[in-house]
């Protein structure tokens, strides 16, 4: 099995450790991972701002870079959801479809494809999980509090394998952090307030770390935590699961 590793642009630029952890974790699980060097971005920043018509270049690049792999894995729910729902190429629509069906968010790949049952790592800390909306409601990585349906959580299942990790229960277990792409600047006031409220929930539970599958939400909360002068850290779930 050969996996194409897709590292979202802002992870590549700002959170290389999350990307390194993703690569090493997959390699530890005996996956042959290739990182195509000509990759850039999924195109979501434009599309969610109403400029989907400008994403043709990103789409073509994505297909060119990733069409040959058995699977594509990315440490991001949001970017994966964008590729799943919006990857198009008018000249290669069938190919685009097949590429968008091959992409997995990291934790879903671990639970659904690799069917991981043990990890042999430890992280002896109090940890809060931020359910990113696109990961949870978009990719259905966890059950959603609005629905009358049996609970489950793919990230939660993986974190339960980590020795010493204490998972806290939040007052609002799946409320949005307010990042929302360009929303974070066009609706600055509401975005910040949402972020502050989300962070406050984690702080009330006495967490040391906030983790999740989406670095964009974590980056937003980190920005607020740091401005507050808080010692609480954000960490991508891949770094915990990789155990380094």
């Amino acid at each position, binding site marked *: 099995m050969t996996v194409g590793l897709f590292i979202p642009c802002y992870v590549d630029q700002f959170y290389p450790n999350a990307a390194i952890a993703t690569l090493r974790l997959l390699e530890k699980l005996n996956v042959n991972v290739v990182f195509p060097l000509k990759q850039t971005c999924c195109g979501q*920043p434009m599309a969610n701002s109403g400029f989907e018509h400008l994403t043709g270049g990103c789409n073509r690049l994505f297909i060119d870079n990733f069409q040959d792999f058995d699977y594509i894995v990315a440490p991001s729910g949001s970017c994966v959801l964008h590729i799943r729902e919006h990857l198009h190429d008018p000249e290669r629509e069938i190919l685009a479809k097949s590429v968008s069906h091959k992409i997995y968010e990291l934790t879903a790949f671990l639970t659904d494809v690799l069917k991981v049952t043990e990890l042999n790592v430890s992280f002896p800390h109090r940890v809060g999980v931020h359910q990113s909306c696109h990961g949870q409601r978009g990719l259905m990585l966890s059950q959603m509090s609005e629905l009358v349906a049996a609970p489950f959580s793919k990230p939660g299942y993986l974190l339960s394998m980590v020795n010493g990790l204490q998972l806290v229960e939040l007052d609002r277990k799946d409320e949005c952090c307010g990042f929302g792409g360009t929303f974070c600047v066009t609706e600055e006031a509401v975005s910040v307030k949402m972020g502050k409220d989300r962070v406050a929930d984690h702080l009330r539970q006495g967490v040391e770390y906030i983790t999740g599958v989406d670095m964009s939400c974590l980056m937003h909360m980190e920005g607020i935590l740091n401005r507050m002068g808080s010692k609480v850290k954000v960490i991508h779930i891949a770094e915990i699961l990789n155990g380094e």
Partner: protein
Amino acid sequence: MEKTSQDHSELAANFNKDEERVDWHDETLWWIRQKRDKNVHQLPEWETLREVASQIKNNVLSRLHIYLKQFEKNATYNGMIVHWAADAAEHNQIVLDLLQGRGVDRMVKSKSMLTEECGLNEFLAEHGVEVVDSDLGERIVQLAKEPPSHIVLPCIHKKKEEIGELFYKYLGTPAGVSDPQILTETARQHLREIFLTRKVALTGVNFAVAETGEFVVCTNEGNADMGAHLADIHIASMGIEKLIPEKKHLGVFLRLLTRSATGQPITTYSSHFKRPSLGKEIHVILVDNGRSIHLGKPDFRESLKCIRCGACMNTCPVYRRSGGHSYHNAVAGPIGSILAPNFDMEKNADLPFASTLCGSCSNVCPVKINIHEQLYKWRQVIVQAGLAPVAKKAGMQVMTAVLSSPGLYNSAGKVGRWVFKYAPFAVNNQLNPWYKQRDLPSAPKQSFKEWYLTNKA
């Protein structure tokens, strides 16, 4: 609805100047969301009910012309008088003609978001007709000379102390009284006089049954019934999408409506109106006002399934923190943001962007409208129509150029972590709003790609 030149983000920023108030607003609405959760989790068949309701409404939208005629025929047979209004102006004129034809210049009205949409109160006031809203929340915002901020909870943005002040000013309660019991009793006495003296009452319609030619009005206060039963003429205004095919379908919708709206199993009053009492009249006004144009848009027609429960507002993390008035539209929140551009895309071009696309709205919607997907689609339509701010457009074009070229992307990254230069934090490359209340991530020594080239390739 009063026009405003400010867009959602400016109005929301104003609302956020008082953080304590935002917390109170957020927590009040979140409490209702939790009540809703508690209630719906008692029904194992909840998700099936939603699916059935969605399919019934899809059927209605596909056969609307048939059901409308069927309803007209049966309602007329029952002795009601059916009017057709192509737009808000026709609707308002029909109401005014009914009033003036009988020499009436005072009317009592129970909650009707459609009349808000049509600007009926303002229109009637201009023609010398006094309208008193009899829903307590509506009456309060009417006294405050404000539009409702929520379709089910019109004065949810007001604290009881502020309501006390209004009642002191207009209804004669002593100064400084904010006890809900006293205020409610005052409103009750005030409205009783209105109910007893008004010859014409207007209500909205929650459901109209094509099969039987009857309609159902749901209230918790019984104010629609008080108004309609005591008046000689009952005018019921309804959007044409309010139809359901058969009476038995009420068994689906009445179970969904109030559980979704307020977390109650059912409204206190679900009143059926089928034929007028002897010597009285019931007029039903079927209002289009853009709905049939809306129906012709495949990407957006599903929003016409809406039964106006307000659940999407209660769950929306943006609505809870920006307040209903920030949406400058009769219907606020997520559903308002996908309905409003149908009426006036230019005026409401900001609304589909007032969302993080978190998707909670679609999950609570009792008729399964794909609200967040429609928000995304409206964004595309609005930008294509040239309604995006110029600076945003320029920023997007630069970003697109960088992201479409691996060479440019790599070199841009090297010269300074391009993300902060272009997207998504600084769309106009001016003063960076991210930094106002949030720190920037510290730029690492190497990007992942650079690390990979050094260590792996």
